[in-house]
Each structure stands twice: as structure tokens, then as C-alpha cells.
């Protein structure tokens, strides 16, 4: 018994270390990928000077950020100001605990995994609000207010679509949800839910076209206007890690997690399938960012309250009725 508790601890610690290392590497890679995708969409080459294909560019940028001075505005609420970047990054890491990378590669297969991940992702709103408010800067405050309104609005359709998947599987455990998609992915059974999930996830991570909390044309940089150095770096890291988590959750909820399409695994290990799909979804999010212009704030709220929430509610209702009479 004692031995088992010990091994559980080791599993957690090793998992946390791997998650931390992976989150940083992933963010470095994603920033590079984003710049490359943006470049090629605009017929530019993107970063290409530092390292092969510019791969080391983000490492150089990170080094620069680490070397910069951490400025705290004199009028800021100092404690909150310092704590906000940590607060935004910590819950993001928690997400890695329950993500089902492969059948045997889950740090902790909780029976409330889906709930845990969404409960903790709500934390980032709090961190953004804390950061924006404590900066004592009107742009930062406006960005924070917008972010809260937006996140509250888009969390509802997000959770409603997740609910319809959970209804089908009757479980909040990630491994069971993925197992249920062995033959057919849920995106084919729940196309509306999948689409709404992707849209709300883009809004949840504050990505364009829903990036009004940091709309640089109106708000300088939004909630992180006053942040510099590695504190700003942490916000950045959290954004890209959030993107990964959101895509990984989409992969396991709608795109069959570690399974190949239609039950064909083709002897490829589950983790490869999982990563392929996750990075493809991340690519789609970037592709969307460099295609569509930012939408206005009232349009954003209208879209959520008047369209996405009714549609996702109807979707949930239809799912429930169909499951009842099937």
C-alpha cells in the first residue's frame, strides 16, 4: 500500500517535470510556427536567420526577455501585479495532468478530468483581470474587462458542447471518452458541437478573430500593456500553452484522441496520432487568425449570446432526446 502511494507520487512529480519542460518547448515551437504560418500566408518567408529555418529565433527572443528588467509601475497594486503572471501560467500546467496522450500516457486518469480542465481554465480569466486591474492603466483595465466579458460569454457554449459529448459517453473521464471513439470520431456524430467547440475555444484563448482583450489597434496591448521582461513572457507562454491544451482537449473529445481514423491505427503509436491531430488543430487556429479580421466587441457578444448559445443548447437537447429514444 505504502509502495503504491509512493509510486503515485513519483508518477506525479515526473509528470509535472515533463509537463513543464514540454510546455516551454511547445510554446517556443508554436511561436516559431505561428510566425512561419503568418509569413507564408502573406507571401513572406518568416523567421529564417537564426538557426536552420529560423528555428532558434524564439530561443533568442526568450533569452532577450529573460535578460530584460522587470518594471513595476509605481501606481500599480504591487502584489497582484507580481502574482498575475504566475496565476495565469499555473492553471495551464494543471491541464497536462489529465490529458490523455496515449492509453498508458496519462499522468493522472481522474474520473472528473474534463471538469477539472475546464474548471482550471476559468482561472486564467481571474489572472487576466488581476493583471489588468493591478496595472493601474486604463488600456490594461479595459482589456481585462473585455476579456472577462468575453470569457464568460464563450464559456457557456463551450461547456454546453462538451456536455453533449459527455452525455453520449456517460463519463467525465478522458480515457473513457477517447475509448468510445474507437470506431467513429465524435466530430462525425456531433459536427455542430465540434464546430462550436472550436470557435469558443479560439475565443477562450483570446486568439484572433476574438482577440479584443489585446486589440493592439485600440488598446495598445490590452491587459499586459504594463508587463515587461519574463512577466510578459509568462503571459505569452500561457497563451500558447493554452492553445495546445484547448486543441488537445478538442482532439480527445471530438477527433478520437489516440485513435486513427475509423479504427485504422496503422500500427502508429497513439501518441503520434494524438500529437498529429493536436498540432493540426493548432495550425487551424493559426490559419484562422491570419485569415479573418478582428470582430467588434458588440458583434462578439451578439455572436455568443444570440447564436452560439441557442444553437449549442438546441444541440444538447437533440442529443439528449436522441440518446433517450435510441
Amino acid at each position, binding site marked *: 500500500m505504502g509502495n503504491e502511494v509512493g509510486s503515485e507520487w513519483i508518477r506525479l512529480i515526473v509528470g509535472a517535470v515533463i509537463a513543464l519542460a514540454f510546455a516551454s518547448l511547445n510554446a517556443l515551437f508554436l511561436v516559431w510556427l505561428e510566425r512561419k*504560418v503568418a509569413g*507564408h*500566408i502573406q*507571401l513572406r518567408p518568416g523567421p529564417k536567420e537564426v538557426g536552420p529555418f529560423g528555428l532558434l529565433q524564439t530561443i533568442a527572443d526568450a533569452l532577450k526577455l529573460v535578460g530584460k528588467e522587470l518594471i513595476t509601475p509605481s501606481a500599480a497594486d504591487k502584489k497582484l501585479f507580481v502574482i498575475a503572471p504566475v496565476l495565469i501560467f499555473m492553471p495551464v500546467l494543471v491541464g497536462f495532468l489529465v490529458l490523455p496522450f496515449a492509453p498508458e500516457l496519462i499522468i493522472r486518469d481522474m474520473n472528473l478530468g474534463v471538469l477539472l480542465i475546464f474548471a482550471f481554465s476559468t482561472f486564467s480569466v481571474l489572472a487576466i483581470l488581476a493583471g489588468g486591474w493591478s496595472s493601474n492603466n486604463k488600456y490594461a483595465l479595459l482589456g481585462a474587462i473585455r476579456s472577462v466579458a468575453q470569457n464568460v460569454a464563450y464559456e457557456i457554449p463551450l461547456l454546453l458542447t462538451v456536455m453533449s459529448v459527455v452525455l453520449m459517453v456517460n463519463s467525465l473521464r478522458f480515457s473513457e471518452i477517447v475509448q468510445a471513439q474507437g470506431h467513429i470520431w465524435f466530430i462525425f456524430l456531433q459536427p455542430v458541437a465540434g464546430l462550436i467547440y472550436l470557435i469558443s475555444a479560439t475565443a477562450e484563448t483570446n486568439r484572433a478573430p476574438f482577440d479584443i482583450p489585446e486589440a493592439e489597434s485600440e488598446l495598445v496591448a490590452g491587459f499586459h500593456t504594463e508587463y515587461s521582461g519574463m512577466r510578459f513572457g509568462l503571459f505569452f507562454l500561457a497563451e500558447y500553452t493554452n492553445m495546445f491544451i484547448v486543441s488537445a482537449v478538442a482532439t480527445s473529445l471530438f477527433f478520437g484522441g489516440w485513435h486513427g481514423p475509423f479504427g485504422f491505427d496503422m500500427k502508429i503509436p497513439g501518441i503520434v496520432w494524438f500529437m498529429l491531430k493536436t498540432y493540426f488543430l493548432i495550425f487551424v487556429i493559426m*490559419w484562422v487568425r491570419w*485569415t*479573418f479580421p478582428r470582430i467588434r466587441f458588440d458583434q462578439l457578444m451578439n455572436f455568443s449570446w444570440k447564436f452560439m448559445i441557442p444553437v449549442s443548447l438546441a444541440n444538447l437537447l437533440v442529443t439528449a432526446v436522441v440518446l433517450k429514444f435510441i
Partner: protein
Amino acid sequence: MSYWKEVINGGWSLVEGMRVTFRRLYRPVVTVQYPRQKVELSPAYRGHIEFVKFKETGTHKCVACGQCQRMCPSNLIKVQGIKERAKGRKVGTQYFIDFTRCSLCGLCVEVCPTKTLKFSREYELEGVSRWDGVIDLMARLGETRP
């Protein structure tokens, strides 16, 4: 029903937009990596003025008439010449322009009676002082007379 029509049309326009950007992803890059690659200049490109080197004489035909100097709206041309033989023509010996003030109007090229001025194709004209903008046209031609 027009509401749903709008939703479908709007949704389709989004897909169309994504298609456009995706096609651009694999199109060749148009950026020219400047110091390593250079763009071919347009034939109408105007750099600062320089002398035409005529084949038959192997040199310029400047007669130091000073029309360009007088015509220049920014007054940035300085030309001097000497008379080598008693009954011969005057020959230009010194020709300086201050390119920092030049507006490339081309009046000097137009007014030149011997057609010995033309626009160069020079565009890498960085310098560290304002005197780097002063160009010695005789030196450019490889002709230096005392």
C-alpha cells in the same frame, strides 16, 4: 428564413476566406533578401546624375557652359572648366553635386546642350556625414584633372 440564409452565406464566405489563405501558404515567397539578392531596376529608375562616356572620345563632352548650374532649382551643381587652346572650346574640369538636396527633377539632364548628363543607377548611397552626399562626377568617370 432570410436569417438562416445569411448564416449559411456568411459561413460559406468564411470557408472561402480560409481557402484563399491556404492557397497562399504554398505559393512562392515574394520577399527579396536584400543584401544577398537584388531587385532588377526599372529602366526609368533615376539615381543621381553622372556623365555619359562617349565611345568616340572615350570621355565626357562637358563644355562647362554652366546651364545645368543655372537651371538647377536647388542650386546644388557646381561646374568649372578651362580653355585649353586659344580658339578651342571650354572643357569641364570639375563637376560637383550635393545629392542630399537633389529632388531628381532632371532639368539638368534636359538642358544639357551636349547630352553628356544622364541618370545613374546608383541606389546604395548610405553615408555617415552630410558630406558623403557630395558627389564628384569627374572622379566617378575616372577623370581627375588638377
